């Protein structure tokens, strides 16, 4: 069973569900963040458990509590664990107490805007530049600002607070030293109610743009067995410090010195979990369901095999400052083949709207070695056809050829280092001419007037070389 907002009726996930309850209301607050309506939907359909997915209510302790109070199973960690980790400032304090190294920085508890700004300004001089401002309730880059020059501090702090208030209703901000040249390494953990807590190795997600991950892989290209063991143990200790039960991710920064620091713990399944599933063979969502049902997790000793890479397909114009784009998915043809997985929320004929996050799908590949996985990703991206809406496919494809990606030396600033003045597609005059020939020929042939394709309407639809064949399978 699924719930959806009125403007999501007819989208892919609603069609995949056996039953759909349409939530009433216009804004996200009235729909996907409306706990009461969601609990009513569960009761109306006879659902016995709620999986919150990622985003929206997935890291809301009050919702976890409300679900349990309603007599339903919450597929996630306890409300207490979510609270301790969800408030990033509390999490830093808990981790310090548990002996897990945290990034040098300061927490500011002030609520009042001017007092908070004053306290932050003072703390900034002690933490030192460059620094990061982060929302205590934050995540996904929202309410976060990097500051390199004290002159920019006030504007950045105000912006971070405003974004934090808008996104989370909580303007508290803390400061961290910005550790440049670091890698973002995170450890997937699983813990069951029987008291077993394990880690499933690391994912490297250093390649980020505005603190949003775009390219994730497992194992980490520079990881050693010793470091994996040390980070894995720290992650398990972090989870145990909050009596964690379920699937979760402990994020670390790995500094060039080889030291690692706790960043935060995500108390939910993560967008990039498929790379771990590919290399460990563990179906993490299945384990979540088992654990929520009170069963022991089913996975045996950790065994990492081959290499997996995920890229996030966004509806955004990479050549134009990565602005979100909208439009029809007139043609949406994902690649196929062994070791290729697509987790998608859209399909051909859908409309990309400005209502929600511009992420369309995740493309994941697996191969026995990292160079082979990277080559498979290049091929998969080349074959991925999306027409009607601008996507970041060509940017992702270009990324696969960037030297730090090829040699595995990526850091959290790789994208900015590679393209300080913004990204533009590499010039390909021959292909551009050929595409102009194709456009002019298609116009001459009147291909757009031959409505022969799935999803086309009144001749305005797409022309596909495949959908018109109309093969029939006995």
């Amino acid at each position, binding site marked *: 069973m699924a719930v959806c907002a009125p403007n999501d009726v007819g989208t892919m996930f609603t069609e995949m569900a056996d039953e759909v309850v349409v939530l009433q209301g216009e804004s996200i607050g009235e729909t996907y963040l409306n706990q009461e309506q969601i609990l009513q939907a569960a009761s109306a359909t006879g659902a016995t458990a709620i999986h919150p997915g990622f985003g929206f209510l997935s890291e809301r302790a009050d919702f976890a509590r409300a679900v349990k109070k309603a007599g339903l199973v919450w597929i996630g960690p306890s409300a207490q664990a979510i609270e301790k980790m969800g408030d990033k400032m509390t999490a830093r304090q808990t981790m310090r107490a548990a002996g897990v190294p945290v990034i040098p920085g300061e927490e500011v508890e002030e609520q009042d805007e001017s007092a908070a700004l004053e306290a932050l300004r003072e703390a900034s001089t002690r933490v030192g530049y460059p620094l990061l401002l982060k929302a205590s309730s934050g995540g996904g880059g929202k309410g976060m600002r990097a500051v390199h020059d004290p002159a920019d501090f006030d504007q950045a702090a105000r912006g971070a607070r405003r974004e934090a208030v808008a996104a989370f209703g909580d303007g508290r901000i803390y400061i961290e030293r910005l550790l440049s040249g670091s890698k973002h390494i995170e450890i997937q953990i699983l813990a069951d109610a029987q008291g077993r807590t394990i880690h499933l190795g690391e994912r490297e997600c250093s390649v980020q743009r505005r603190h949003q991950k775009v390219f994730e892989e497992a194992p980490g290209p520079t990881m050693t067995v010793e470091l994996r063991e040390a980070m894995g143990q720290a992650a398990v200790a972090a989870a145990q410090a909050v009596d964690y039960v379920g699937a979760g991710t402990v994020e670390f920064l790995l500094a060039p010195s080889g030291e690692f620091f706790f960043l935060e713990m995500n108390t939910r399944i993560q967008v990039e979990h498929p790379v771990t599933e590919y290399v460990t063979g563990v179906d993490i969502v299945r384990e979540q369901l088992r654990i929520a049902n009170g069963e022991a997790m089913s996975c045996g000793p950790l065994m990492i095999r081959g290499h997996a890479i995920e890229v996030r397909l966004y509806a955004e114009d990479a050549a134009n400052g990565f602005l979100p784009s909208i439009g029809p998915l007139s*043609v949406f043809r994902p690649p196929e083949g062994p070791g290729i997985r697509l987790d998608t929320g859209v399909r051909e004929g859908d409309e990309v709207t*400005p209502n929600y996050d511009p992420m369309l799908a995740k493309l994941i590949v697996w191969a026995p070695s990292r160079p082979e996985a990277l080559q498979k990703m290049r091929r998969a991206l080349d074959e991925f056809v999306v027409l009607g809406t601008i996507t970041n*496919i060509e940017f992702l494809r270009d990324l696969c050829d960037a030297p730090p990606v090829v040699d595995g030396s990526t850091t959290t600033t790789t994208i900015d280092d590679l393209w300080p003045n913004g990204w533009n597609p590499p010039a390909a005059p*021959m292909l551009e001419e050929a595409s*102009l020939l194709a*456009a002019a020929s298609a116009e*001459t*042939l009147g291909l757009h007037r031959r409505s022969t394709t799935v999803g086309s309407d009144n001749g305005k639809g*797409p022309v596909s*070389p495949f959908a018109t064949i109309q093969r029939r399978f006995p």
Partner: protein
Amino acid sequence: MQHTFASKEGPLEVTLARNGEAFLLEGHELTPHSRGRMHVRMRDGRTCLVHAAKVGDIWWIHLQGRTYRWERIEPGSSSAEDEGGLVAPMPGKVLEVLVKEGDAVEAGTPLMVLEAMKMEHRIVASSDGTVLSVHFNEGDQVAQGAVLLELE
């Protein structure tokens, strides 16, 4: 078989030559197959499958991992381009207006902050100039393509 497409350098006239079923341009040869399929043999001998779709006036063309967009200009129409106008790239809400009428700005000066898809986007001056008019106030909702400010 002459078509005009918009390009950064201005209208681009394309005249196709024919060779039997095939279309020719600058040494590239396109062969339409039945049921809408197309192949291009490029001047350098490479051959590739082409996907094409028209949305509005724009042809979206995919080949060899690249997607190109060609906006067709109807014969007789002029391409209206708002010189100096800064348009909203996305539907969203105006969070901050950082300039007022008459302000002199340099290329790169932030002019307005928009919120769209829960993120803040800055509208910056694309060139040096003077702010002629500001069309929206803080808190206003703007549609995609709305002219936010005009620069001279």
